[in-house]
């Protein structure tokens, strides 16, 4: 009662000044301004920029959709798109398989779960840049971890990873797998632990062995969790930048040049800001579509 009375009194006081109506907006203002400044403004600016032509870093006129059309005729973009797709497909597949395997392994042994969760989370909380630097040190052909190990244990020569196209690409995939398998593991472990126990016991009594249980029961029941995890990870993998930037800068040649790196180079190396933003916005749209799909999957999961 006392609070209600106080509320009415406060209402009377503030109503006169019109503060009552403005107050919510005032309170929201700092956050809103921040969002406008760092999210909305750059996007609007970027979209506008993607329709402009740049010469030596200066806008020299509008070109309509030319920047977007150019994407279809640019072999370098095609190459970058191909590398990105290869990278995403390979990395996400390996991460899913490894994550699922680890989750199944750990889910069975309950006392082990906590420790495993703790250890496996570490790669995820390391800054991507640092991950790139660490892997550069691992792969370095002179003082790198792999070279040192080979030298000291097998007496062999230096290990070259980042100097050949295919090995650099696989090295990059390995980095991503190291960093993001834990995410898959955590999502899938939570999924597995939320499954009902009885159907699995029923399947055992009905005559199913380990493999049939996995194929007939675990996978179908995990389907929506798997879909969500893969969707999330795919979206994230499309925008990988920091690690590549530190590790290879897209090289050797264009073998690890993801779209994010190509877009960065186009903008900041060749000062073609219009084309660079157009490219990255196009990719953003694809990722946005994927995100919408992921959200739908999550919603459907929640409904069930």
């Amino acid at each position, binding site marked *: 009662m006392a609070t209600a009375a106080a509320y009415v009194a406060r209402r009377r006081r503030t109503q006169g000044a019109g503060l009552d109506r403005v107050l919510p907006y005032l309170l929201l203002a700092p956050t809103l301004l921040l969002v406008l400044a760092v999210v909305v403004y750059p996007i609007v600016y970027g979209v506008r920029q993607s329709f402009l032509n740049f010469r030596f870093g200066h806008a020299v006129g509008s070109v309509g959709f030319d920047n977007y059309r150019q994407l279809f005729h640019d072999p370098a973009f095609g190459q970058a798109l191909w590398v990105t797709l290869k990278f995403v497909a390979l990395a996400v597949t390996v991460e899913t398989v490894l994550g699922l395997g680890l989750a199944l392994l750990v889910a069975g042994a309950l006392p082990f779960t906590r420790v495993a969760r703790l250890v496996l989370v570490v790669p995820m909380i390391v800054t991507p840049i640092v991950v790139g630097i660490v892997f550069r040190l691992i792969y370095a052909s002179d003082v790198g971890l792999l070279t040192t190990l080979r030298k000291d244990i097998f007496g062999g020569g230096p290990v070259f990873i980042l100097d050949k196209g295919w090995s650099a690409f696989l090295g990059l995939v390995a980095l991503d797998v190291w960093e993001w398998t834990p995410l898959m593991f955590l999502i899938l472990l939570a999924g597995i632990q939320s499954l009902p126990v*009885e159907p699995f*016991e*029923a*399947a055992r*009594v009905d005559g199913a062995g380990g493999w049939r249980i996995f194929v*007939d029961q675990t996978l179908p029941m995990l389907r929506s969790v798997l879909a969500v995890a893969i969707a999330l990870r795919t979206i994230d993998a499309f925008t990988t930048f920091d690690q590549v930037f530190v590790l290879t800068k897209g090289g050797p040649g264009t073998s690890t040049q993801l779209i994010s790196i190509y877009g960065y180079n186009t903008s900041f190396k060749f000062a073609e800001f219009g084309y660079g933003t157009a490219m990255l916005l196009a990719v953003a749209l694809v990722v946005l579509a994927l995100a919408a799909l992921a959200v739908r999957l999550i919603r459907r999961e929640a409904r069930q």
Partner: protein
Amino acid sequence: MLGPSGCGKTTALRILAGLELPDAGRVLLGDRDVTRLQPRDRDVAMVFQSYALYPHMTVAENIAYPLDLRHVEKTERKRAVQEVAELLEIGHLLDRRPKQLSGGQRQRIALARAIVRDPQAFLMDEPLSNLDAKLRASMRGELKRLQKRLGATTIYVTHDQAEATTMADLVAVLHDGVLEQLGPPLEIYDRPATRFVATFVGSPPLNVLPGILDAERRAFVVTGTPVPLAETVFEACRQHRVTELGVRPEDLAICGPGEAAALPGEVYVVEPLGNETLVQVRIGDSVVALLVGRGWDAPIGAPVGVALEPSTACFFDPDGRSAVHRIDRPEARRPDRAAARGEPQTRERSVL
């Protein structure tokens, strides 16, 4: 297997199924030692309390799954599913998913999945406990008919003594992980091995009255009133140093408070049940329940007598074991009840 929750009956069933390993002992299926075998190698089918249907499969797929695992041909599989579906009257549900079914329907699907395999034994873990009371009663009869028709050994776990006595050929009463008694339902009812079995089986439960043996009067004295005992019964009671008398509610009768040999008490509460009346009477520190005819009534606190026919009483020793069983002679029973029950076996006066 009958027992209160937590007595270990489900664990025992899971050991039979192979879902859990016993700490000691062997599991024999016929002559086959299956103690260390995987569930799938035991050829038993289980119906779970929660039904444990496969949520992502249709009803038909659920039922066919055990056959699929045994590499049964597709047409044969389909035929078997049809047959079982017909038997359980679930043919119209075959394309649905478990989520779209009611509890009773799910229960039938779980049964169908077990039956389709034609296993050596059925294991059922409280399959009726998730159904409402009415459906439970009708399914109880259906299950019994089905079991008789299939003729397969069925081990049925329940905490409901009515289910146990109505459905079983043999009842195993479990308590705190210990097998208290194994026997046919009526033997469990008439000759309970322990105080626990005696009070667990039967509704309303058996009355237990503490008292002391009086050697001079050859009687068991309950709150000052002697219950005279036959010589053999008294000897057995003395030998086992019995401390408690047990008597079924239907073996007690109400009489006037002053009547000789009646236990004096006062009405605790009167509960009309329809065709009869449940009366609870306070005798000393205990409250006993007894059944009288319909229409009987008395105010709370009214003094009444409880007539106890000594030959219908059983006696327990201090460890809760039955020292003397209830004597199951027809002439010792109240005539109206003996007729209604159709006396199964006539047993000689027996003393443990």
